[in-house]
């Protein structure tokens, strides 16, 4: 976390202190609101199903680590996990590579139609992609991509691109144009300028794009439900539904599965949060 600034200056007035206290309280409440279910999920994952209902908020009497082993072994969980990983990594790679290239062109070059293309990409943010599910389904069917991971990867990449281009183009535009020219005179090609000079400078933006896109992709239930039928191609959110029985649900295993499913994204968020914060505050202060 960054140290608090601004309000912590000398000669602070009561109003400022009260405002800061209110802000801190709200933030703490929000953090609690987010963390409680996660904690509850982790706790429950270490109990037996009976115990969850009998003593829902207590610490587990004896932590049942075997829940994790059982979930990993049961019901193709490892396969779902691998599928989710493939789909997410491939979608993110597509978003980052094509998004960066598009944003580089839109943000660093002036050409006829520049703004029009930018607006075209922006319009993608305004259209909820789920509205297009029927045409997308038909398109995937015609391309013979139904029931393949490609149906998911392509749709995720397409739905992530508008926001990625919006964020990255904004960042590219804040960098001084002389940087490109200096590199150009130094002997770098156009792609070289992007890779050696500009990319290291937009790293915070890449982090924002990653965090912003990776969670919805990793968690998505909707598109796998529509596009994927074979069990061996299911992703985690879809796969986890096997724990919801018609008459009975194995809550302990479900929570263990959810914890495992959430772990990579949480870890990524923790790792990238510094970059993420840097990205959000970039441009706020000069330098």
């Amino acid at each position, binding site marked *: 976390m960054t140290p608090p600034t601004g309000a912590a200056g000398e000669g602070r007035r009561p109003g400022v202190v009260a405002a800061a206290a209110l802000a801190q309280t709200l933030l703490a409440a929000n953090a609690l609101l987010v963390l409680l279910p996660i904690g509850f999920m982790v706790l429950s994952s270490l109990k037996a199903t009976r115990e969850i209902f009998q003593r829902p908020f207590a610490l587990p009497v004896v932590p049942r680590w075997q829940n994790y082993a059982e979930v990993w072994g049961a019901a193709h969980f490892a396969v779902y996990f691998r599928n989710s990983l493939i789909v997410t990594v491939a979608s993110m790679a597509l978003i980052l590579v094509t998004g960066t290239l598009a944003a580089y062109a839109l943000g660093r070059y002036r050409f006829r139609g520049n703004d029009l293309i930018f607006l075209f990409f922006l319009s993608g943010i305004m259209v909820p992609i789920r509205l297009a599910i029927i045409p997308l389904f038909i398109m995937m069917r015609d391309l013979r991509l139904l029931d393949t991971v490609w149906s998911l990867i392509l749709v995720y990449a397409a739905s992530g691109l508008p926001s990625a281009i919006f964020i990255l183009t904004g960042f590219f535009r804040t960098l001084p144009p002389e940087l490109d020219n*200096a590199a*150009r*005179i130094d002997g770098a090609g156009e792609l070289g300028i992007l890779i050696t000079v500009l990319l290291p400078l937009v790293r915070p933006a890449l982090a924002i794009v990653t965090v912003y896109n990776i969670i919805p992709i990793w968690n998505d239930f909707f598109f796998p439900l529509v596009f994927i039928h074979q069990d061996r191609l299911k992703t985690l959110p879809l796969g986890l539904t096997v724990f919801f029985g018609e008459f009975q649900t194995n809550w302990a295993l479900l929570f263990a599965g959810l914890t495992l499913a959430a772990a990579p994204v949480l870890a990524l968020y923790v790792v990238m949060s510094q970059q993420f914060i840097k990205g959000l505050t970039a441009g706020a202060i000069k330098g």
Partner: protein
Amino acid sequence: MAKVMLEQVTKQFGNVVAVNNVTLDIPDKQFTVLVGPSGCGKTTALRLIAGLEEATSGNIYIGDRIVNDVAPKDRDIAMVFQNYALYPHMSVYDNMAFGLRLRKYPRAEIDRRVKEAAEMLGIQELLGRKPKQLSGGQRQRVALGRAIVREPQVFLMDEPLSNLDAKLRVQTRAEIKKLHARLQTTTIYVTHDQVEAMTMGDRIVVMKDGVVQQVDSPLNLYEKPANLFVAGFIGSPAMNFLEAKLAKQDGRMFVDGGVFRAEVPREYIPKLAEWEGRSVIFGIRPEDIHDRALVQSTDGAAVVRATVDVHEPLGSDVILYLTAGEHSIVARVDARSQARMGQTAEVVLDMKKMHVFNPDTHAAIL
């Protein structure tokens, strides 16, 4: 090292003509300064030479080769930018080595050149730092270093000193001159500051509205400005321009400004003969106006009685803002001058230093 030549070069941005039919010959090893007010096309001219802009028409030569279609990296030039344009994520060493690495120089050669340039600029101890950790002056040196290590044919500098504070600017000005004396690389330097231009340039190109006004040595620009614009641009405070008539009487010629009447030195009369009896713009520099009380003889000089509006003592001398009739006159007189605000003062014009301009074309007549 190479000469640089512009041949009828024009650059248009939409309807705006930034550089208008410019022909320039910049000899090898010379330090040439492009100077003019903002928007005069000097930076565009530099960017055309660098290859960052494409000429609308005309030819650009570096050495004996036309470089119109040559990419910036293949023009064998190095450029120093106003905001330095250092790569923020690279150390000083890497900033300087970047261009050489891209050109696949051997590692030992890169190391030698970077260290040598760093020593020349006195930044050896900064090589490991990032640009963010440097002061403005240090960043400026790194930017120069990045240009030097390339050992290019031509240095292009775009207002490299304008982001420095006044004291550092004067100091760096001298250092760049020294550097040029040592490296002897053809240098084209852009500035809007006429003092910088006068102190640094072997030759100065004065531009206005995309058109070259005059190309000359600093002294010639000062003494023989080609037109009203150059006369007003070079020198500080600027030259006084007064509307006057040339009148002839008994074989002598006078500048008749209404409230004053100043005799034209005999040797100038032939040049002004055809303007006799006509209106002209009479020009005289503030430093060529003296306090009458401090001048021993007033031969060949003319006296003007004027009211002192403002009195600015600079220590070394005094700037007087005077009003004589409808004329406003600025004079830079000796520090011992007793003229004070609100009083009437008598000043003497040194007519040997007079200038006369055509009121319609603004071209210099004398």
